[in-house]
């Protein structure tokens, strides 16, 4: 069916009072979470999951999507006003955004970020709407070897985007290991339960996500000094000259952000980095960058918002997340009994199109909310973290207990929380571990099915062109950053010291 007809049907579902409320709730929460330190959209979605028990999956996913792109807007505030990115996706915005704030142009930086985010979010959603169904249609032809290769690509790509490929891969494999606890999905016998009845159902995704992203993040953040925000916002709307400087940056950021967002696991952070680099490269006077160039805010902000929409393309169409947050959303979809992947567009088309339609609505709400209310959100930065983290801990604990009415789950959360804290402390990424847990059963099932089909020969993965191409991409995802790091280290060693 025509995507525009599907979209109209999506608007009909998204515009019901209940779903509109969920969309509003999602974007407002996302905005707040983006502003508050110590909790990101991944943790927030994990913490909100218990609240969606028994509710409609469509409403819940609309809220989560709103929270995801709302957090991109919120993260900008902290970048501009205190030079501390609320999210990793806003790191590049801080460079010129905070300089603009120090020059008394905080409002313009926030204004252009909101306008750029709105344009990029809307165009990105248009791209999602046009591209995802085509990709899903192509993926309908996938068999077990292709799915295995696709999951392998998702895991390796997510592992490779952090600071260390080795750490990313280790946490990803640890996630697969945790995912193998419980009943063997193929033969139905318990394994790795160590005679503990409560382990027969395996480790719940919510528990791991809350522990790593919620508790681990809180433990790593307590005790860190607070920054002093700039509260003089001033004029929010850019003038004609500022708009002239920023408009092409927004369009470039949108294009590059969306394309990077589609790549499994590349996500909004890389998109904002590339968006910034491109702006600096094409600028007539690159020396303005780092000193309050408006393009240095518009480009990366557009890129990270377009990437948020792009990251939903592989999640909806292939069942492989494009970012940390979509990895948690993928788990949420599975928790609701849905199977993310090509079938989503046929079996759950009303949900997918309602979420896509809600993204247009949510982006408009965010624009309308951000321009006049920027100074109000900025005041939230004055709340000390010591008032924020105890309620987050209480929500983590309540969510863990409420999930299965089990005290054991609370202890499991505590244990994984300690692990999450250590991982955060030493910069070991948590997202590959959650993704490993979520995709573990699919990974193992498709591997075993493929080997059974081929009578035990691994050549089945290489003899089929799509799976071979995906595995090659997975190999490159690991090899390229590893080799680059090696070359850089060799160069550093060859440079004589002072």
């Amino acid at each position, binding site marked *: 069916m025509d995507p525009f007809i599907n979209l109209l049907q999506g608007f009909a579902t998204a515009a019901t009072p209940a779903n509109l409320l969920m969309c509003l709730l999602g974007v407002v929460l996302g905005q707040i979470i983006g502003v508050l330190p110590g909790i990101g959209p991944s943790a927030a979605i994990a913490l909100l999951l218990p609240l969606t*028990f028994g509710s409609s999956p469509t409403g819940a996913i609309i809220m989560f999507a709103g929270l995801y792109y709302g957090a991109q807007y919120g993260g900008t505030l902290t970048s501009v006003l205190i030079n501390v990115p609320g999210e990793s996706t806003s790191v590049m915005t801080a460079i010129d955004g905070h300089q603009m704030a120090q020059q008394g142009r905080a409002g313009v930086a926030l204004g252009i970020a909101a306008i750029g985010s709105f344009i990029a979010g809307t165009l990105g959603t248009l791209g999602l709407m046009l591209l995802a169904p085509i990709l899903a249609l192509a993926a309908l032809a996938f068999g077990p070897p292709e799915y295995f290769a696709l999951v392998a690509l998702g895991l390796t790509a997510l592992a490779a985007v952090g600071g260390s490929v080795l750490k990313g891969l280790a946490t990803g494999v*640890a996630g697969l290991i945790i995912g*193998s606890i419980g009943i063997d999905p*193929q033969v139905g016998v318990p394994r790795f339960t160590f005679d503990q009845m409560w382990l027969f159902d395996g480790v719940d995704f919510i528990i791991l996500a809350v522990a790593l992203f919620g508790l681990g993040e809180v433990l790593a953040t307590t005790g860190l000094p607070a920054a002093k925000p700039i509260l003089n916002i001033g004029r929010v709307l850019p003038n004609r000259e500022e708009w002239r400087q920023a408009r092409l940056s927004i369009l470039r950021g949108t294009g590059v952000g969306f394309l990077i967002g589609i790549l499994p696991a590349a996500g909004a952070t890389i998109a904002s980095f590339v968006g910034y680099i491109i702006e600096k490269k094409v600028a007539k006077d690159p020396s303005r960058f780092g000193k309050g160039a408006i393009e240095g805010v518009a480009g990366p902000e557009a890129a990270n918002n377009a990437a948020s929409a792009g990251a939903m393309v592989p999640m909806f169409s292939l069942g492989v997340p494009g970012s940390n947050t979509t990895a948690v959303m993928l788990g949420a979809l599975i928790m609701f009994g849905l199977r993310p992947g090509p079938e989503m567009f046929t079996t759950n088309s009303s949900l997918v199109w309602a979420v896509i339609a809600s993204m247009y609505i949510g982006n408009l709400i965010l624009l309308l909310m951000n321009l006049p209310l920027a100074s109000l959100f900025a005041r939230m930065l004055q709340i000390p973290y010591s008032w924020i983290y*105890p309620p987050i801990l*209480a929500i983590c604990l309540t969510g863990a207990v409420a999930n299965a009415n089990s005290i054991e789950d609370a202890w499991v959360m505590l244990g994984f929380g300690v692990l999450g804290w*250590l991982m955060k*402390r030493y910069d070991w990424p948590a997202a590959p571990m959650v993704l490993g847990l979520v995709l573990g059963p699919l990974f193992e099932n498709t591997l075993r099915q493929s080997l059974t089909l081929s009578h035990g020969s691994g050549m089945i993965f290489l003899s089929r062109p799509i799976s071979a191409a995906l595995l090659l991409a997975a190999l490159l995802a690991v090899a390229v950053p590893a080799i680059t790091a090696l070359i850089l280290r060799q160069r550093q060693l060859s440079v004589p010291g002072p």
Partner: protein
Amino acid sequence: MHGRFGQGEVILALLFAALGLLWIATAFGMPFWQGFAPQSGFVPFWYGVILVGLSAAMVINLVRQKEAAAEPPIGKPLVVLATLAGGIIGLQVAGFGPSIFLMLLFLFAVVEKLPAIRSTVVAAATTGILLLIFKAWLRIPLPTGPLGI
């Protein structure tokens, strides 16, 4: 403190290696391969092998580093962790409401040294909101104590 190498991180890598070794050892006791098809122990065994390999590479990398970065202090996170553990024990003894309230009050007033009255009000309000959402609205049976909440 600056160490010769990141000893805490080495311990973390060794923890991952231990997890891998546990999986290898446990998978040995499971059916591995039957006819043409891999069985329950096959995939977890290889997970274990890969994790041990990756963790070993991490340890080697870390030991070869000349100097580790300064690490933030661990005192406060440990106090927060202990409070959370107390909260979990409290769930079984005193029930959800009192244990969450006391946990929050302790964190606000004792750990963070925030004003006592404001701490009590915020702790009570947070507990009340959580009870309202989970117990009254979502009807999730949370642990109850002598006070019935």
